[in-house]
């Protein structure tokens, strides 16, 4: 009796969570296909906003900029993060524990503060605003995610595999590429997807570190909303959400660490 009651309660609770998570998104997605500019009902299906989006050079330029920055950041952060994880796993570097612990706070520090700090830093060292600063900033934000995910996967790795490879004549580089990396590949893929998402969704750091005019998509959306909402923004947001969700689903699949292949 009570069990069935609790089960039902649990299901309702889960339903509510999903509702509050997805209802706004679904509403926005629906409105991006509504013909009315002022979100008026009844709903009339239209792809007009997507067509307008397609002709909107400002948005397309910003989107392209966001994508290529995210790709560069993903490559850099994944390579650096994976190398760091393997080094931390393999060698007893002095202060290793402190180093590992220090990787976590940046995940928790509000991006507003990180962004301010970065701005001060880049001006302090005389680099100032600009695309290189944005990329370095994004890499710094994404790095801890990659390291955490790859390290988790590495913890399931059997070191004797590396020893076996060495006993068979493989040098450190071959051991890494042929034995270690294949095992942690799911972690590397998941880390890369996280890195991409961190960069692609990044607002604060991009906003602070970009030169005026060099907007990324989230920055553009923010400024556009302040000027006045248009369903075009709905359309691009819907596309971003679709993409982000796809990425996260794939990442979650891979991030099921430990799975035998």
């Amino acid at each position, binding site marked *: 009796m009570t069990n069935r009651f609790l089960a039902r309660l649990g299901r309702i609770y889960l339903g509510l969570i999903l509702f509050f998570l997805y209802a706004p998104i679904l509403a926005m997605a629906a409105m991006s296909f509504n013909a009315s500019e002022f979100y008026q009902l009844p709903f009339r299906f239209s792809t007009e906003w997507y067509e307008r989006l397609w002709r909107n050079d400002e948005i397309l330029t910003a989107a392209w900029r966001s994508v290529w920055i995210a790709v560069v950041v993903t490559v850099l952060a994944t390579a650096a993060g994976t190398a760091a994880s393997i080094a931390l796993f393999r060698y007893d570097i002095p202060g290793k524990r402190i180093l590992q612990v220090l990787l976590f706070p940046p995940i928790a520090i509000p991006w507003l503060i990180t962004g301010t700090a970065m701005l001060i830093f880049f001006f302090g060292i005389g680099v100032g605003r600009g695309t290189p600063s944005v990329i370095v900033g994004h890499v710094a934000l994404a790095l801890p995610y990659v390291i955490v995910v790859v390290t988790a996967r590495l913890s399931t790795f059997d070191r004797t595999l590396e020893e076996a490879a060495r006993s*068979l004549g493989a040098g450190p580089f071959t051991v890494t590429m042929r034995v270690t990396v294949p095992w942690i590949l799911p972690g590397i893929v998941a880390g890369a997807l996280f890195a991409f998402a961190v960069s692609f969704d990044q607002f604060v750091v991009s906003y602070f570190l970009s030169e005026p005019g060099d907007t990324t998509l989230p920055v553009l959306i923010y400024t556009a909303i302040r000027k006045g909402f248009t369903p075009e923004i709905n359309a691009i947001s819907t596309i971003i959400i679709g993409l982000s969700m796809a990425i996260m689903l794939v990442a979650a699949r891979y991030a099921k660490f430990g799975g035998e292949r």
Partner: protein
Amino acid sequence: MAVVRTEGLVKTYGATRALDDITLTFPDGGFFGLLGPSGSGKTTLLRAIAGFVIPDSGRVFIDDAPVENVPVEAREIGMVFQNYALFPNMTVAGNVGFGLEVRKVPAAERKRRVAEVLDLVQLGELGDRKPHELSGGQRQRVAMARAIVTRPRVLLLDEPLSALDKSLRVEMQIELKRIQREVGITTIFVTHDQEEALTLSDQIGILRDGRLVRHGPPREVYDNPRDPFTAQFLGEANLFSGTPEPGGLRLADGTLIPGAPTATIAVRAEDLRITLDEPAAPIRLRARLRQRIFAGAMGTCVLDWRGNPLKAIGRDQDFAGLPAQGDVWLSWDSADMIPLSEG
């Protein structure tokens, strides 16, 4: 093939002396069994030879060349790990061919040599399988094939059979010996199983707390263990100590053992006779039978002599007339007494 030699190897971990002055020669083409209880330093010695462990002092020589500046990957060794350490992302053929691939052996020759060695370990058909699709015994054979296909100078085996169940273990012991004979590689084999070491090895070395207690051909070491540790570790030996007198050895309970050669002697469990009536033999003791253990063809009797546990092993019919418990007579022939050095 090669002669492996260690000279004064010392390795400490904190307060633990994992290796304490190990000087030992592993003969060319021989099968050397390293034996000792858990924690005695067997794995550390093997890993020092492989190059995974850097000794605090002392040196390793392969064919008279010191190897301290040669990294593991250049020492031309083959190693079989306790858990086999097969690469999970590669097939059986991929695993076995890895060492050849790393050495840039051309694909055609590689294929031929992999097939050849898989035949040798009787896995000819399984080249395309992944390690997780194999049984324990098959994985063991793959690990062996992978270690020998590169024709290493020395083959290092760390308790390679301990993960197998008993009947498979005996089968693999025979296999291991056959394969080693066919390829003739200098082999160093670590085990804590004395029977395994005696069966397989041409030479054995016994380790205790990082020290080499004894080494030599198995038969010689078994027949003449010299010290109490070796006597008790190799086979089941019962120790007796007392005060030497002109007539023999006077034990604590007053019994005189005529003809005892040293202050401490050992008598193997299989050389003890148990009788209900007082025997005519000149060497005899009164002891208490605690328990009889039936184990198929052979049986074990657990005895107590003045608080010291003793053990006798014999065919079940040898113990036929004995009660389950009670006072009995022990006796042995004077030829069965093994002289030992220290108390």
